[in-house]
């Protein structure tokens, strides 16, 4: 069985092209609809009157009903608290696993990998208790704390560190670098692509995280965007479509804009993090 006819092949590919675009249109349609609805009055949005008058009232309404700016700030604080700590803690651990053969290191590594399966959101009940004992419920740090030690990050960095040639290390040691100096001057710079990859993946994960922040936050001062949006849009409150669309848009805008601007980096980071 073979289809050698070039004509048929070409037909196939133009059909394919149409299919590819149809799929793409279908895929972004929901977002486009939300975008469109956010700028129109609810009654037009429901009737889907495509060329109804534009309005910014929905956004004004959202801002006056809920402190979305504050929510955004909280989300920003969570990720900027969490990410640097993730990187530091994981770098140290990954370095230990990559370059030291310490007592119990194999078992320890397997125990680290356990966290790839059992992520903190599975253990909400018990972790909430722990956080309460620490007096860290309803704090920005509390939202990030269970995620600081990331098995995923340790794993990624360890792979990268292991691939760094021993000669570089020897050369640096000759120049008198200590353990941490070696890490800082040789390993970290060479692992930059991995850091970037993990950072973007972590950033988008925690920007969008919901269940754990929902449980540990009580007040406006800590509530991140996702939780704010969840409370704002809860059906009990009587859904007003356009206003909720506007709120949704406001919540996803920062990350989405960053993604659209740095699309290549994002996609490549996710790819890199995935292959490892």
């Amino acid at each position, binding site marked *: 069985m073979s289809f050698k006819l070039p004509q048929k092949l070409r037909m196939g590919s133009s059909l394919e092209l149409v299919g590819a675009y149809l799929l793409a249109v279908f895929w972004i349609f929901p977002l486009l609809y939300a975008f469109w609805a956010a700028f129109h009055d609810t009654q037009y949005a429901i009737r889907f009157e495509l060329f109804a008058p534009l309005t910014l009232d929905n956004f004004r309404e959202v801002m006056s009903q809920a402190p979305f700016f504050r929510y955004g700030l909280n989300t920003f604080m969570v990720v900027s608290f969490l990410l640097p700590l993730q990187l530091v803690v994981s770098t140290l651990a990954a370095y230990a696993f990559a370059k030291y053969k310490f007592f119990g290191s194999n078992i320890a590594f397997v125990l680290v990998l356990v966290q790839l399966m059992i992520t903190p959101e599975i253990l909400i009940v018990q972790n909430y208790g722990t956080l309460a004992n620490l007096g860290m419920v309803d704090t920005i740090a509390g939202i990030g704390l269970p995620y600081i030690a990331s098995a995923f990050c340790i794993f990624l960095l360890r792979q990268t560190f292991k691939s760094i040639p021993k000669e570089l290390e020897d050369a640096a040691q000759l120049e008198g670098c200590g353990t941490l100096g070696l890490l800082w001057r040789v390993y970290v710079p060479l692992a930059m692509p991995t850091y970037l990859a993990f950072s973007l993946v972590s950033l988008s994960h925690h920007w969008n995280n919901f269940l754990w922040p929902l449980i540990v936050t009580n007040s406006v001062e800590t509530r991140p965007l996702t939780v704010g949006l969840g409370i704002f849009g809860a059906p*009990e409150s009587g859904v007003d479509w356009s206003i909720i669309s506007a709120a949704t848009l406001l919540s996803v805008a920062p990350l989405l804009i960053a993604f659209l601007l740095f699309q290549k980096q994002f996609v490549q980071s996710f790819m890199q993090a995935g292959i490892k």
Partner: protein
Amino acid sequence: MNIIKKIAISIAAALSISMMTSMAAAETELTMYYPVAVGGPLTKTVDKMVENFMAENPDIKVNAIYAGNYNDARIKALAALESGQPAQLSVMFSIDIYELIELDAIVPFDDIVTTDEEKAWLKSFYPSLMENGITAGKTWGIPFQRSTIVMYYNKDAFRAAGLDPESPPATWEELVDAGKKLTKDDGSQWGLMIPSTGYPYWMFGALAMQNNETLMNDAGDTTFYDNPGIVEALSFWKDLGSKHKVMPEGTIEWGTLRQNFLEGQTAIMWHSTGNLTTVKNKANFDFGVAMLPAGKRRGTPTGGGNFYVFKNTTDEERAASLKLIKYMTAPESSAGWSVATGYMGISPSSYETDTLKSYIEEFPPAAVARDQLEFATAELSTYQAGRVRKALDDALQAALIGSKSPQEALSEAQATADRVLKDYR
């Protein structure tokens, strides 16, 4: 030199000012959680009331925290207590009372009020609104955002169907008849929608009472889910969809229902009076509000949120909390709140205020919830309320969808409730 001096002086001045203000203000700090369960800018209204209170009482600082729906608010308030975060009082579901007592989380108001005037204040509210707040001879909850279920109807649709817009259905039979006339064959307009997500047990409380039944006993330790009259009430609810075809089959979403009504997809909806002001502002047709129709009798459960004061509080905090609650439930505040939202005034005297008097004169539907109080009963409230309520909710939905018969669904729910509650009897 001069500049340094100036700076030093201004720093000193700033310091002393800030010290003075901090001494004058905020002797007692209160944190209060509150829920919102219907649409509209309710948070703004609450914040405004709290602000006014603080302006009048500069020695008390109140952090009012909006925490989502009733369930969320209870979860958040209890979580705060457990984790040592401050929380002195909260607005929570009126029906959370037994759970809060079991957790030893709240104090009865009888222990907080001291003067005769305050004791009299405890008795100043509508008695039917107090039903969910009193148990074992003590008052644990003070009504705040309280509601009943009312019937919103589209007068234009009534006219179009040849029905009298001024005499909405008053009995189940009339409801079915009107529904049949209002339901259009092409599916563009239904006669009636009763929401069955969100708070299905609440809607059902109305139907059960209209059939002369109650869902639970006063002690909160026994439910009557499988009484014949209650099964009959559920059969009626189900028949509205499957037999009479005046309501869509399956469940109807609590949250989007108001939109359905405003879009003319249904001519009648049953919903909380807490939606009244939003419907009034958004409806572009002539609408009316009526009491729920009668089966064997009229009936609706009351609903909504009460004020509770937590046990783990100092005497000063309790006194300040009482002050705040008294302010928020005072006739004038209650009247303003009612106008802003549609929730009812909680005391007879709130309906004596000029605010509500003139509002009702201009907009008579605002009085329906109050008039209906005469036929109102307590909302479903028991120990282990979450479980017991969920058992009923699941049963109602199962029956409405048709996956179980009303009898079967309610018997199962009763068995679940019995299992959960047996230790409390």
